[in-house]
């Protein structure tokens, strides 16, 4: 019960953060709103018992990726976006209502068509996503993918240097 409550609480916070990111007129505020979204997604993972993924979400996305976002915003020295006053609010409301109707329809259709797969028991899911079990899978059956990911990260490093250093002009 608590899980369900927290899940929907954080889901709403995530959506609010995403909307805030879109509505904010200053790129830096947008980035901060996005941190809120990423953080609540991490909380969502934790309510689903995927603790490791949740922690990684905070570490990599809310931490590292957002740092890069802020760097790029400052790199580009973005001006503030034009204010929202220019928007036609009737259209915005109409859009929101349309989305609401669409969501309702989709729910009805999905109930009729048996869209949702059988959920996995929470205990089973929690077991599969513990850091230990991820480690075991990662280093045995996914060892090939792991090494290729290493090569991918190397290529990303090389690419970043090639795109940024003067020697390559």
């Amino acid at each position, binding site marked *: 019960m608590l899980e369900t409550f927290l899940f929907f609480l954080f889901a709403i916070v995530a959506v609010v953060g995403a909307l805030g990111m879109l509505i904010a007129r200053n790129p830096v505020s947008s980035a901060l709103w996005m941190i809120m979204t990423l953080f609540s997604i991490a909380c969502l993972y934790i309510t689903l018992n995927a603790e490791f993924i949740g922690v990684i979400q905070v570490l990599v996305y809310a931490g590292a990726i957002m740092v890069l976002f802020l760097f790029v915003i400052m790199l580009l020295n973005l001006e503030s976006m034009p204010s929202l006053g220019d928007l036609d609010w009737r259209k915005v409301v109409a859009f929101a209502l349309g989305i609401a109707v669409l969501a309702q329809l989709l729910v009805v259709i999905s109930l009729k068509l*048996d869209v949702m*797969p059988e959920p996995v028991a929470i205990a089973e899911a929690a077991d599969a996503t513990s850091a230990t079990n991820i480690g075991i899978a990662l280093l045995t059956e*996914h060892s*090939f993918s792991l090494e290729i990911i290493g090569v991918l990260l*190397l290529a*990303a490093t090389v*690419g970043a240097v*090639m795109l940024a250093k003067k020697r*390559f002009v």
Partner: protein
Amino acid sequence: MYDFLLPDMGATAPILLVALIGVVLVVVDSFSNDSASIPWLSGAVLVAAITIELARVGVTDSAFMGHVMSGGFASFVNVVILLGALGSVILSVPYLSRTGHNFGEVHALILIATAGMMVLANAGSLITLFVGLETMSICLYVLTGLVRDNERANESALKYFLLGAFSTGFFLYGIALLYGATGTMMLSDMPAALVETGRTGFFAGGVALLLIGFFFKVSAVPFHMWTPDVYQGAPTTLAGFMSTASKTAAFAALILVLGRILPLDDVGLDTRHVLAIVAAITMVVGNVLALAQRNIKRMLAYSSIAHAGYILTGLAAGALGYAGALYYLLAYTVMNIGAFGVMSVLEWDGKQGAEQTIDSLAGIGSRKPLLGVAMGVFMFALSGFPPLAGFFGKYFVFAAAVDAGLTWLALIGVLASVVSAYYYLRVLVAFWMKKPEDAHVSVQSAAFDVPLFSKVVLVACVAALIALGIVPGFITEAAGAFFVTPEATALLP
């Protein structure tokens, strides 16, 4: 616990070898900038990998608990990818040296991209599929933006990156939904899981998103917008690499996904229609837009969109068309590497010559007969004249479409090919029948040699096209065998 490691490393040796040498090239380049040995090393490892794969075409195997496939189908596709990479590396050395961009990193990135393509094309699970796709894409984004002082190159790299990242999102979402619907990441377990769960809306959504990701990577029509800009802006030989090897990898992965999780008799029926409609639109739009292009690289980009449509025709025919599609991929790789190779030689300095149009190349055939003849062969092959390889490629995919009851699709394909003859032959008219005096002064006065390496690749491509056209059965039998033998059907129904 790690008993599987050594045999599986042996089974995936070509991929690991290419990736390893890619890493080694980064080390070599760190210690001696742009060392002359780097292209040689990368050429050597590609040749070695091709040799290993050729020896393994007969076996069917899988490695790393089914996450990677090896031998048979995988080896065949790897050979095509590696041939594309080898041709591009050899052509790139003189081209990039002339434009002053022959960095060691370029060759390292080409090798790493090639390894990524092979992982994508040999994927046994959705995880390896994604890892391969990303490895390939990241390297290609960087290679597209190689010429940093060229605004068009920057624009094309940015476009490619943004749209590519967007399509990766689709791809990843599709993977997540498929996993949610079937509970497994393994492609080989999916049919059984589907029988158990039935075909949920989750599954259909996952397939749709995955297909969008694939359509983007093979530049099928509603998702083709990036292709002309990227091919025009990227260094020419690397555009050839992108248009051949990466498409081969994406198509091979698409065959794996379609063959494994969407068997035609049952759940895949409407997916076949989606493929057929996308193929039809792609052929029509690609060919019609190519008619309007005067810039030859841009024309080749639209032509590559059209060819994606032809190959999709083969895939829409289901298991009947897979062997034909594989033959087509091989033929297409050879002729497109050749066509981009000729253009790379004609862009002799990468500056004045970088924008070659139909007008600027008037009469170049009589000045450089080798280039003229080679371009003639490539254009005839691309438009599908017998007895060159392009003809049989088209024949196989269209015949498969007719056999599968998609006669209308084959008809559209044939009509589209007729249209394509106009723009391919227009290049030849410019090359041979216009007088050199019609061209720009800068082109007339430009003195440039055809580098020996480029000559070798172009002659090899011409010879391969003729050989593939005279004895097409050799390849189709090999390719067809992947889809009938019991071991292969076990892997790929």
